[in-house]
């Protein structure tokens, strides 16, 4: 196994429902190597998104730790977690990935601009990245002019444009028809392998997991090897 980049240990997350407390993550441990595609399979409602959000620092665990390059994400302030995401995280959601009032090019350029890259340079890198996902000519279009598959490709371009350490994808094909889903998944795999990076892919479809080097199954708040 390659060197560990991300290590989660003892993650607990529970929600109160009425007078009952439901544990969604129950002392969950996970290690993500620097260059590997990991798929996390699980039924709907099993807590996959919750886990992914905590790994990405957009949600917090009740207890446990998430270490990235040795730093404990769970100990950081909200602000510092945001700065971590800005630098080191790329994320693809199932729905509502793109900002409707930004053009496709601007959507992809946002992470660069936030990181302080000049708008001109950001636009250039964004255009290059859009080329790589096969949308070279669409930089000036608004997202609502794009098909679902095209929108997801833009989201992938945005997740990778700043060359992040960790890439998380939450059911990126969940909203697409089968063929489009295949294409998007293929693109994700290709780009990840090309840059020698990693990808944590969450999905409820075993077929989607086929691109992964390693498949984990989420059940009862913990991960099992398949």
């Amino acid at each position: 196994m390659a060197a560990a980049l991300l290590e989660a240990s003892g993650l607990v997350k529970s929600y109160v429902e009425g007078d009952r407390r439901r544990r969604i993550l129950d002392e969950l441990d996970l290690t993500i190597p620097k260059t590997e595609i990991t798929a996390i399979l699980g039924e709907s409602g099993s807590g996959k998104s919750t886990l992914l959000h905590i790994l990405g620092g957009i949600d917090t665990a009740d207890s446990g730790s998430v270490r990235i390059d040795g730093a404990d994400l769970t100990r950081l302030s909200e602000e510092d977690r945001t700065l971590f995401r800005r630098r080191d995280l790329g994320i693809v959601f199932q729905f509502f990935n793109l900002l409707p009032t930004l053009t496709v090019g601007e959507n992809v350029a946002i992470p660069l601009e936030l990181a302080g890259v000049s708008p001109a340079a950001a636009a250039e890198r964004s255009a290059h990245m859009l080329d790589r996902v096969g949308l070279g000519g669409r930089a000036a279009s608004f997202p609502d002019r794009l098909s679902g598959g095209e929108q997801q490709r833009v989201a992938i371009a945005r997740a990778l444009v700043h060359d992040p350490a960790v890439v998380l994808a939450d059911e990126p094909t969940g909203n697409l028809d089968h063929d489009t889903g295949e294409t998007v998944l293929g693109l994700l795999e290709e780009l990840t392998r090309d840059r020698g990076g990693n990808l944590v892919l969450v999905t409820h479809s075993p077929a989607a997991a086929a691109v992964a080097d390693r498949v984990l199954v989420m059940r009862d708040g913990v991960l099992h090897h398949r």
Partner: protein
Amino acid sequence: MLRQIAANRSQTLLMVAGVALGVAVVVAVDIANDSASRAFQLSTEAIAGRATHEISGGPTGVPVEVYRQLRRSGRRDAAPVIQRLVVVEGQPLTLLGIDPFADAQFRGYTAVAAAAASLDALLTVPGAAILAAATADSLGLAVGDDFEVVVGGISKRLVLVDLAEAADARTERAVRGILLTDIASAQELTGRPQRVDRIDLILDDAAAAQLAGETLGRGLRLDPVGTASGPAREMIDAFRTNLLALSLLALIVGLFLIFNTMTFSVVRRRAGIGTLRALGMTAREVFRQICIEASAIGLVGTGLGLLLGVALGRGAVDLVLTTINDIFFPLTFRDDSLPLLSLAKGAALGVGATVVAALPAAREAAASAPRSAMMRSSAEHSATRLVAAASRIALLLLLGGLVLFALPTRSLVVGFAGLFAATLGIAFLTPLATQGLMSALIAPLRSLAGSLGAAAPRDVSRSLSRTATAVAALMLAISVAIGLQLMIGSFRSTVAVWLERTLTGDVYISAPSVGGTAATDPLAPGVRPALEQLAGVRSVDFVRSTTVRTDLGPIRVAASSRPVYRGQRLYHSLAVPVIELSAALRAGAVLASEPLMNRLGIEVGSLIAIDGRDGPHRAEVVGIYYDYASSQGTLMLDMDFYQRLSGDTQITGAALHLEDPGAAAEMSLQVARALAPQQALDVRPNRALRAEVFAVFDQAFAITGALVILATLVAALGVLSALLAVQLERGRDFGILRAVGLTARQSARQVVGETMLLGAAAGLLAIPTGTALAYLLIHVINKRAFGWTLQMTFDTEPYLSAMGLALGSALLAALLPARRIAARSPVELLR
């Protein structure tokens, strides 16, 4: 339903606040207006009593002999009256000199004077007077005490011989303002023996015609009661119409707010409503549900608004009464009873308006197809539709406004209707204009702040279907602020120029005014010679201000010893060259002020029959001059001619021209001190008088400013409520941005920035709107209400402060939504 209200607590609170503020302003202004109106009525009624007609004799009054003749000829229903504003211990009272034997049938409360105890005292004790028990109490006087009364600056002493009791609460309030004496004592006080101010009569039409037919004596006139106060009544009505219009503005802004919020509450629940419809709820039931909700909010808001309105109204009454006192008519009573009608009106308006404003939303909800969850796309579709529809309505309203202004009428109400149509018309252009402005801002903002900068104006355009009403309301309130400020500024500078030309004297002398009303009390006889002998004085001008009767009704006159001073007056029109004016006036021609021209419809060349002691004099109007001293209008006469015409030789004011104008302040003190033994006079250097004019001026507009601020407040609430709704829809966008690395603080900044764009749009649009409004206020409304022409002047201050107001209220409205966005974690936003 209650759960729904609880769930959208902040939205509901805003709606309630909007209704409450709107209702409060309307109720407060109504209470103030009503109170002013009733104070006026009480003042005139209590004094007129049951009289139907009166015989008056112009500035010199009516000889007592006329009254004696009437009595001798068997007319019992006649009573002589001397009426004057006087001051006792700093409190203004109406001195009423009466004939105790004749008066009770006119004014029930004077019956006390005929009672055996007081009758004896009134007729035998010099200076015997009667006060209302409450008034005596508040002055600390008991029967038998003597006290000082100041009549036109001259102090005299009276003895309290009895207390008056009123039969009912209504007269009680009136009697409190009255100081009752016998005619003889009153004559002594006013320094006019053998004369009374008028003779009151109770006549039916036939008797009136008969009496009018008899020769009453030269210079006398028989008029129905109320003729004298007619012009004042008109002016007060115009003033009240102005206030009413402003309060309606606040209500309109409140309506925008309600409409806005109700629509959002429906839009946001569209999915839920769709589900309910799918489950079998009928369109009609949905409609009813929304209406019930609106009524509940309307009721609560109205209740609060009524409470607030009564509280505000109390303050407004003082402002309005002071203004009326200063400018139009002396009111010595005030009426503090709570006008139930005002409350009822406010209640009906509040609840009714809320429901009406909610109707579009209710219809939209009822029309939503079962299970139409496509919120975003239908919302956007409606944004484009909204711009088109609003622009069409705008066009209609603007056309309507044009037509109303083109109507050949001087009606103030029509003027205001036109003003409302035009302003609302521009308000309906807001979506279109905002869209245009935002498109223009994309490029500059991109170069300033990158992609997020470019996104801001796009976001504003996109959320227009939610925010347009709020921006329009804010724009409306701010343009009214600009319009009023420009109008007041123009007014002020016009008056300043006019004062510069009119107040050419260095020191002004007049009898002190009572309750702020322009003084017409005469100067004591010894004052004139004393002034003429003063060292250091180059010349003295004298003026007699009074009211004369004419064929066009009573008119204020200013008879001046130098009516055409150095040709400095500004003339609207002239029949003869300026250099020939003095001669024309000496020969009996007159000048009319512009408001008089507008009020009476006279022009250069018109003839006015002025009552004189030897019968009417037909005076030709040889010029119309600009004048801002009186909105009722003034006739300017030559002093010598006036004295010959009327036999009235009293003077009411003097202006000193000094050899050294720099010594004005010193000279004022010296004159006041020298004349003090004769009469306590207001002696003011030019500069102080000018300052006083402006103080009265600013006071008159104080209430206007308060109303504008309230309207802006309501509008800011509207923006806040719109933003809260928009923010609810845009949570996901911010969730994505946060996931990508936008910090909480940056998100808040983005919200504030976008809201400031909205504020800027409202502010920018308000600039042309406010300017147009000022133009209409100056050239149409003011002209119709007060009859004067104002020079429109532009100042950057109103525009800057309006921009500040727009951005400030936007900032204020943005704070809560920005904090909310920043406080939520990315995952909450994404949900």
